[in-house]
């Protein structure tokens, strides 16, 4: 067990830190959360800078246009960018963390050449069209249909909670290509252009008041068969590949951010006298210990995936369960520290408190994660 970084890793960190110190002051001002075109431009502008500096797709395989960095280097990258307060992937989330890795792993050479470079360069944004109104946790029961017509699929149905749909160029879309097959069997994974005729986007307001996600209606949308990644009706397996990436390293930077938030919270409590309340103080101490442990768990998982050749394991579910609950407790504790100050939406962290509510729902609810842990890690029998 070794927690020290190699000389090479330390060098990498130092160079990155220097680059961040130089680059971050040059960034334009952050757009307001409601300014969608502004956010897209801001996030892609950041991606472009990463690309030009050679940091785009750091951990992607070299033949997919990435840098082939080790999981540890990727970890350092996420840690340092968060420390420095750099923008996160933002609108590029799905492209970089789901669709890209999936296409890199399962796509043909032509598909990789078509879709991967624009993600890395920050030219194209992807969204994820998995969930449907009647298919959330039970994703495999999805009903959006794709019927073959010559070289196209003709798609009809609807998707919901599609994050960033309004600014996306492409959608990783799950469709049913064989309605007669068992529900996990008849699904295919397609890349759908969001500007195709028949695609209608209706923004949904979140509880935070923002339009973070949308409903997407599909009315006889034609998508070339060539846009299918993986074999027809083999989309469920491809999806499992996607989801393992989703749960892999998605929250690394956030653990760092939570520790920073806690430090600010302690100073606030000290300034407003709440620190003298031993119950609250100990709660903060406990959270500090928990986030420290979650950071170590991240390092453990990364080291494990480094030994096993870069594949994220089921440990991601263990992490997501612990992290999503700790994060919600952090913001609830912040509200205790701030009292009535926690009621103003002008405070950015109050929005963070609201958004933390999605962590036990999005990307697989805590209940579903517990099923995964119980069945796939602990080997308990499936319910009938």
């Amino acid at each position, binding site marked *: 067990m070794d927690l020290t970084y190699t000389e090479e890793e330390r060098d990498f960190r130092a160079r990155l830190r220097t680059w961040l110190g130089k680059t971050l002051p040059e960034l334009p001002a952050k757009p307001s959360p409601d300014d969608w075109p502004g956010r897209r431009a801001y996030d892609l502008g950041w991606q472009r800078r990463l690309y030009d500096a050679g940091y785009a797709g750091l951990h992607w395989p070299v033949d997919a246009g990435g840098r082939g960095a080790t999981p540890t280097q990727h970890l350092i990258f996420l840690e340092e960018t968060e420390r420095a307060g750099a923008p996160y992937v933002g609108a590029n989330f799905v492209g970089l963390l789901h669709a890209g890795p999936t296409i890199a792993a399962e796509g043909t050479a032509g598909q990789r050449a078509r879709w991967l470079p624009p993600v890395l360069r920050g030219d194209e944004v992807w969204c994820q069209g998995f969930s449907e109104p009647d298919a959330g946790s039970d994703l495999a029961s999805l009903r959006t249909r794709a019927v073959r017509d010559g070289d196209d699929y003709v798609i009809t149905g609807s998707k919901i909670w599609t994050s960033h749909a309004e600014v996306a160029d492409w959608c990783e879309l799950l469709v049913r290509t064989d309605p007669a097959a068992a529900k996990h069997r008849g699904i295919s994974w397609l890349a759908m252009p969001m500007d195709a005729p028949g695609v209608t986007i209706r923004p949904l307001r979140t509880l935070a008041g923002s339009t973070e996600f949308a409903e997407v209606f599909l009315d006889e949308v034609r998508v070339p068969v060539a846009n299918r990644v993986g074999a027809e009706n083999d989309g469920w397996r491809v999806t499992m590949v996607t989801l393992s990436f989703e749960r892999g390293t998605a929250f690394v930077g956030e653990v760092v951010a939570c520790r920073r938030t806690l430090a600010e919270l302690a100073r606030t409590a000290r300034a407003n006298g709440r620190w003298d309340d031993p119950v609250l103080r100990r709660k903060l101490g406990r959270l500090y210990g928990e986030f420290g442990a979650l950071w170590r768990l991240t390092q453990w998982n990364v080291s494990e995936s480094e*030994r096993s050749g870069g594949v994220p394991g089921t440990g991601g579910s263990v992490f997501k369960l612990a992290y999503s609950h700790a994060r919600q407790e952090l913001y609830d504790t912040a509200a205790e520290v701030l009292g009535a100050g926690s009621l103003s939406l002008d405070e950015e962290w109050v929005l963070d408190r609201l958004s933390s509510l999605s962590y036990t729902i999005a990307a697989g609810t805590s209940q579903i994660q517990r099923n995964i842990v119980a069945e796939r890690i602990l080997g308990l029998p499936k319910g009938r």
Partner: protein
Amino acid sequence: MDFQLTRDQRDLRAGVRDLLAGRFGREALRAAVDSGTAVDRGLWRELGAAGFFALRLPEAEGGVGLGLPEAVLVFEEAGRALLPGPLVATHLAAGVVPGAAAGTAVVTALDLGERGGPLVSYLAEADAVLGAPLLPSGEPVRSADPLTPLHRVAGDLRGDVSEHRDAGALLTAALQLGSALRTVELAVRYAGEREQFGQPIGAFQAVKHLCAGMLVRAEVARTAVYAAAVTADPGEIAAAKLLADGAAVRGARDCLQVYGGMGFTWEADVHLHLKRAWVRAEQWVTAAEAEERLAAELLAADPAEADPAAGGLSRIAADADAP
């Protein structure tokens, strides 16, 4: 960075597991409970011979010359097996109290909280108290844990353990971790075997989710304990103890729930895990002490790492400062 067990560490852990399975398996555990034999001197010497106590003593002083990470792995196994006796105190006494390293002496410590008068574990079994000049006398107390006899010691009690507090807390956390991982195994095995309503109870989601929660707490505690062993950082040790205490105590309780009525019997081992976990939670560093230590560290944490642009909290802090 390679935060995984080395081959040697894996081998060490497997070796200790085998040793304990052979020498202190379930039957030996139950026999010890039935006879009330908390410390078996023969076993103690065998542990000594196997290097259990001398593990971190330099080779020049007759020790094994290994470090905290290895000690943690060994204590994790002891916790899994519910091995009784003042293991941590004797380990800490190696090189200090004659005979401790070899397991010919049994050494206890004043490691329990002071509420209601100082309680000492294994006093009647001990040859020495770590850091204390004499073996004090005391009144026996009916102990919650059948294999941790307790005495209440009257009068002026000396035995400074402050220099051992961190190592003691970490090794105790490792014992808790072993127990927590063991209760996950017990619960999962029982849930797969016991049938109700025509199927294994483990197919019921309410039971599954109890087990998953146990594993999550144990895994978070595990990395905390291992990392603290590598860094030996006092804050990380406090966090490791806190999380391992929680994983062991709650793990045993959830395991008991999975066992149902069987879990409430003397027959099942679950109560032994729970009671030992309660004892250990009071040893070296309690939850309240750990949280206070972490809170102090948090307050001292470098705010320069904070992103000034994020600002929400700092702005409120500034408001609070204003008259």
